[in-house]
């Protein structure tokens, strides 16, 4: 599924894996997370190797409240840090709700909170905003950007949405169709906050051209 694939991320950098559906982006993420051991090659994780991951589905424990879910993944998180996290993501009112009482957007935010509460050395996101309406997805992207700006963490974001990748990442890895390898590495010079719509549009066109067969 993946063939001769190599990529490197600097500490604190946000990388985006962009590629067509089925090229193996999720498989690659699972390998990095240590969930898939059937491969040849090596994965070098930063520092203590503390992982935070946001899956395509929220994957919250339905029988525990939102706060309990976050605390189970991050037992050493302080009350203050959790407060700040919940405030940024707008979840304070839902701390004691069960996942069945949350909307999809809130559940996705809860998964984000959980991943950040761990204070990870590596943050992995697998299409975290797919199937949300545009306005909500845009809002969540902003919240993610705010969290990453507040506390820089090496991040790898998997997405098929080129705009999302360009808006959030410092470096794009364009993947070919299966068996996937890195077609191109596109660094994005401008810091996230200063990217203008014009620059984004130009970059998007360049990337889309590069991706099409």
């Amino acid at each position, binding site marked *: 599924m993946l063939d001769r694939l190599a990529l490197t991320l600097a500490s604190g950098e946000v990388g985006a894996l962009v590629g067509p559906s089925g090229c193996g982006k999720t498989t690659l993420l699972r390998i990095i997370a240590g969930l898939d051991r059937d491969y040849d090659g090596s994965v070098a994780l930063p520092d203590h190797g503390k992982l935070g991951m946001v899956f395509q589905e929220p994957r919250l424990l339905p029988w525990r409240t939102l706060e309990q879910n976050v605390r189970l993944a991050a037992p050493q998180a302080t009350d203050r840090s959790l407060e700040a996290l919940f405030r940024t993501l707008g979840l304070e009112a839902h701390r004691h709700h069960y996942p069945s009482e949350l909307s999809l957007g809130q559940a996705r935010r809860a998964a984000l909170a959980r991943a950040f509460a*761990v204070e990870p050395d590596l943050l992995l996101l697998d299409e975290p905003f797919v199937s949300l309406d545009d306005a909500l997805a845009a809002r969540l992207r902003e919240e993610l950007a705010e969290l990453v700006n507040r506390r820089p963490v090496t991040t790898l974001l998997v997405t098929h949405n080129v705009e999302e990748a360009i808006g959030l990442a410092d470096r794009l890895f364009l993947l070919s169709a299966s068996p996937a390898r890195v077609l191109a590495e596109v660094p994005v010079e401008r810091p996230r906050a200063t990217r203008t719509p014009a620059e984004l549009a130009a970059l998007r066109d360049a990337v889309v051209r590069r991706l099409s067969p």
Partner: protein
Amino acid sequence: MALRLLSLALMIAAWYVASRLAGPRALPDPQAVALMIVSEARSGWLGYNLGMTLARVAVAFALAMALGSALGLLMGRFRIADWLGDPWLVVLLNLPALVIIVLAYVWAGLTETAAIAAVALNKLPIATVTVREGARSLDRGLDDMAEVFRMGPWVRMRHVVLPQLAPYLAAAARSGLSLVWKIVLIVELLGRPDGVGFEIGVAFQLFDVTKILAYALAFVAVMLVVETVLVQPLERHVSRWRPRTA
């Protein structure tokens, strides 16, 4: 509630009519049985026998549930355990209860250990099969999530695995409890000197239908209390996170 009481009243009325038709030796009327219950309670025998039977039920049930569920979880999670254990499971499931009881008594003597072991062995395969199904349908996505966040084995068992197994454990407990107390009565009848089963056996030999019914009803009443006071609240607590259906 009113309907239930009405139904209960009808049951007692039907009993009364039937006993008039069948005669007091074949079917004593509700009064006679009630009087027998009172006299046995007064003499202390009812309490003693009920106590012995309940103790056996508790121990055998706990043993069968604990071992059976553990086995079921193992077999549902690890294919090798399933391949190894399945033939034994099938044999145990299909061995008649009576055979297990009789063999236990023959090999281990008419002892308390043999009695409880026989009951536990009878119930164990049912718990295993039920919990195995639960283990097979565990959400792998949640397993992955727990692994990524480096949750320890106790955390995983308590927060990820057991809540998923809860409905299966409840089902195993429910069917198991009703099975266990029926088999306990049989082991008592066959080889123990006390308990509800023993008393029913003696009453059978003396054709004392009143005593049979007295003990039977007293026992059913106790099991109903256990059901209401222990099993149902437990079930409610375990399901408290489920979204309420309208």
